[in-house]
C-alpha cells in the first residue's frame, strides 16, 4: 500500500501531491495509483488505442463538451455553482445562427447575432444570480424558457442552409493536421487558464469563490462577477452551437437534447467534466485545466470502450462509474485535509 502510494506520489505535480498528502489515510493515493495502473493497462491492451489518429479522435470528441465545461468552470470557481441551462442556451444559439445563415445573412452577421443572444442569455441569468437568486432555480427556469423560445421560433423544424457556405470551415476544416474544433478547444483551454492565473479578473474569480464575505470585505462584489462568468459560460455554449451547426449545416432545437456524444444528456456531461477534474463545487479551488483534463478523461474512457466493441450500455456505465469514482476520490481527499483544520 505504502509502496503504491509512494510510486504514485512521485509522478504527480507537487501541489497535488502535497494536497493529497495532507489527508489521513493513504487510501486515496493508493486508489488513484491503482486506477492509473488499470488505465494504462487498458490503454496498452486495447487495439488501436495508442495511435496518433485515435488520440486525435479522443481530443476531438472531448472538444465540444470540453469547451462548454471550460465556460461553466468560471461559474463554478466563482462560487456561483452551475448553470443548468447550457444545453438550452446552445439550442437557442444554434437556432439563431441557423436562422441567420439560412436567410442569407452570412457567417459574420449570423455569428454576431448569436453572440448577442448568448451574452443576453448569460447576462440575465448572471444578474438574477448576482442579486441573490439561487443558481439552480434561476437556470432551471431559464432553461425551460430558452428551449421554448428556440422551439417556437423554429416551429421545431430543422433549419438547414445551403452548402457550400462560409461557416463550413469551422466545422469541417482543419489546421496543422488537427480539426478546427480541436484547435478551438486547445486555444480556449489555454486562454482560459492564462486568464485565470495571470489576470486580475481571474484572481477575483478565485477570491470571490473562496470566501464571498472576505471578498466583499476587500472590495470585490459578486454581482458584476456573476454577470461576467455567466456570460462567459453562455458564450462558450454559443460557440459550441455554432461549431456544431457549421459541421452539419443545419440546426434543430432539440439537437442537444437527444443523444449527444454517446453518453447522453449534455447538461450532465458538461457538469461532469467540471466535477471529474476535481474542481470544488463550493468554488475557490480548481482550474479550467482540470476541466479540460476531465473532458479528455471521459473521452478516453468512452473511446476505450468503443474500441473494445462495447455497446452503449456498458459504455455509459463505465463513464458513469468513472465520474462517481473521481467524485468519491476527491471528496475523500478533501475530507481528510479538512480534518486537519
Amino acid at each position, binding site marked *: 500500500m505504502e509502496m503504491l502510494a509512494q510510486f504514485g506520489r512521485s509522478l504527480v505535480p507537487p501541489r497535488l501531491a502535497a494536497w493529497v498528502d495532507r489527508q489521513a489515510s493513504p487510501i486515496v493515493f493508493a486508489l488513484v495509483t491503482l486506477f492509473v495502473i488499470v488505465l494504462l493497462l487498458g490503454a496498452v491492451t486495447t487495439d488501436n488505442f495508442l495511435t496518433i489518429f485515435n488520440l486525435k479522435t479522443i481530443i476531438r470528441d472531448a472538444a465540444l463538451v470540453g469547451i462548454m465545461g471550460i465556460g461553466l468552470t468560471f461559474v463554478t470557481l466563482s462560487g456561483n455553482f452551475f448553470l443548468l441551462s447550457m444545453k438550452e442556451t446552445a439550442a437557442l444559439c444554434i437556432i439563431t445562427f441557423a436562422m441567420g445563415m439560412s436567410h442569407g445573412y452570412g457567417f459574420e452577421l449570423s455569428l454576431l447575432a448569436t453572440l448577442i443572444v448568448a451574452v443576453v442569455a448569460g447576462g440575465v441569468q448572471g444578474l438574477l444570480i448576482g442579486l441573490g437568486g439561487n443558481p439552480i432555480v434561476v437556470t432551471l427556469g431559464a432553461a425551460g424558457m430558452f428551449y421554448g423560445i428556440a422551439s417556437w421560433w423554429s416551429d421545431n423544424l430543422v433549419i438547414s442552409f445551403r452548402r457550400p457556405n462560409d461557416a463550413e470551415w469551422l466545422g469541417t476544416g482543419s489546421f496543422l493536421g488537427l480539426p478546427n474544433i480541436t484547435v478551438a478547444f486547445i486555444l480556449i483551454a489555454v486562454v482560459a487558464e492564462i486568464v485565470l492565473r*495571470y489576470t486580475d479578473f481571474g484572481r477575483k474569480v*478565485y477570491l470571490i469563490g473562496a470566501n464571498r464575505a472576505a471578498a*466583499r470585505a*476587500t472590495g470585490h462584489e459578486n454581482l458584476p462577477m456573476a454577470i461576467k462568468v455567466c456570460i462567459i459560460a453562455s458564450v462558450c455554449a454559443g460557440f459550441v452551437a455554432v461549431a456544431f451547426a457549421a459541421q452539419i449545416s443545419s440546426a434543430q432545437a432539440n439537437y442537444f437534447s437527444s443523444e449527444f456524444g454517446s453518453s447522453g444528456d449534455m447538461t450532465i456531461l458538461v457538469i461532469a467534466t467540471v466535477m471529474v477534474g476535481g474542481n470544488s463545487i463550493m468554488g475557490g479551488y480548481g482550474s479550467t485545466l482540470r476541466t479540460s483534463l476531465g473532458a479528455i478523461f471521459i473521452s478516453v474512457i468512452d473511446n476505450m470502450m468503443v474500441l473494445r466493441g462495447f455497446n452503449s450500455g456498458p459504455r455509459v456505465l463505465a463513464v458513469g462509474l468513472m465520474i462517481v469514482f473521481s467524485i468519491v476520490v476527491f471528496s475523500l481527499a478533501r475530507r481528510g485535509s479538512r480534518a486537519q483544520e
Partner: protein
Amino acid sequence: MDTILKLTGISRSFGAIAALDGVDFEIGRGEVMGLVGENGAGKSTLVKIISGFDDGYTGTYEFEGHPTRFHSPGVAEQAGIAIAQQELSLIPAMSVAENVFLAGHNVQAVATKRSLAARARRFLDEVGLTDIDATVRVDRLSIGEQHLVEVARLIAHDPKVLILDEPTAALGESDSIRILNMVKKLAAAGKSIIYVSHRLDEIFKITDRITVLRDGESQRPRKAAELNVNSLVELMLGRKLENMFPERAARDRRDLLLSVRDLWPDGMLESVSFDVYGGEILGLAGQLGSGTGEILAAMAGSHRTRSGMIDFGGETFLPRNPAAAIRRKLGYCSDDRKYDGLFLGRPIRENLTSPALESVSRFGWNFGGREQQVAYDLAEKFTVDVSRLSAEAGVLSGGNQQKVALGKWLSISPKVILVNEPTRGVDVGAKAEIYQKMRNLADEGAAIVFASTDMQEITYLPDRVITFYRGMQIGGFELAGITTAGILKDITDPFNETNL
C-alpha cells in the same frame, strides 16, 4: 463540599504554543463556579477539554471521583456534562419544543407539536421560560429567550454539570437577568454550573467561587465574596502590562483626519459622533451589545445604517459597501477573521494583496513578480514568515493569521484603519507585535480606530478612548486619564444602577 469534577495538571499545546500549562480546575455539586480570563488565557481550550470536544491533553480528569477521559462530546454528554456554546445551535424554523427535543436519546419517536410542547413544559419551567408557548417558532423569541431554550435542551438530558460559555454576551439587560435567575435555580436543584463570562458584574452576582486563568495557567479558586472587581481584574491581568504595550506619549494634536457625524448604525439606540486625528490610536470601549463593532462596520460600509455621514478626505459621504470605503483608503477588519478577514484556502501572498489587486498588476495582468515583492514587503513589515508566502493562510497560527488579516490593509496605503478586536484569539507574543505595528502605523501618520472588550488592551494601547454602553455613546478619556476602573464604570454601569 462534594467535588464532582476535578482536573489536575492539565496541559495542552497546539504545535509550539502552550494553550494550557499545568491547569487545575474543580467544581462541587450544586456550585456555581465562575471562569474568567482574558482573550487567549485558555478559557475555551479548558472548556473544550471538560466537555469532551478535545481529548489531546495531558493531566488527570476525574469525574465523580473516577479518573476518566472523554473522547467525544457525545460520550461526555451521556456521562452528564453538557455545554452551551456562545453560538446558538437552534433550528430557527422549528418550534421551541421541537428544538428542546432535537437529537436526544430519550426522545419519543412519534409525537405531535402539542405533545412535545407538553413534555417540554417541565424543562422550560426549570429555565424560567414559564409563559412561553412551546409550539411557537423559536426564532420569534428574543435572543435571551433563545439562549434559555438552548439550555432547556441541555437540561432535558439531565446533566450533572452545565457549562455556559458567555451566555449573556449578546443579551440585553432583562434577558441577562433571566439567565442569571435560571443559573440560581439550577444550582439550587443540585446542578453544577461553570459560568464563563467577561461580564464581571454578573460573575459577582451569581458565582460561589471564581477560577482565574491567565496565560494558560490557573489560579486557585477564590470565594466570590472575598473579591471585588478591582482585585479580580488585578488577578486577571497580572503584572505583565508594562512589557506588552508600546509607549504612548502626549503628542501634538495632528490634523483632524475623519469626523463621524450623527452616524446611526442599526442596533444603536442613538446616533454617535466623534473625531479621529492623524497619528493617533483611538479605542472604542464597550461590551458586546454596546455597538462598538457596529459603528466600525458602518464606517466601512459593511453594516446597515439609518442615517449619518463621515467627513473624510474632503468629502462627506457614507460608504454603501466595503468597496466604496476601500476606494477612499479606509480599511476595516471585522472581529471574525475566519469569516471575512482571510481567504483560508488561498496562499498568504494572495491574502496580502487582495484589497489592492490593481497595485500589483499592470493593465490587469499579474505575472507574480510585483505581487511577490509587495507581499514580501508587507509580510516583513508585520513579521510574518516571508519564506512561506505560498502556503495557505489556513495553516498559520491564530496570531499570524491576525497579522495577515490586519497587514493586508497596508496594501492600499490606508489613511485610516478600523479594527474590531485586534488581538482576538492571538497569543501573548503576537499580541505585543501587533500592538507595536499599530503604533508604528500611527506614527507614520495614519489613524487607527479599534474596538475591544479586552480590558488591558483598551486601557494601555490607545491615545484616546470613547466609551459606549448598550448602544449609547457615554464619554471619553485621554492619555493618562485612561484607567481600567474609569472605563469599566462607563461600560458596565454608567447610570449607577448597581453597586459594585
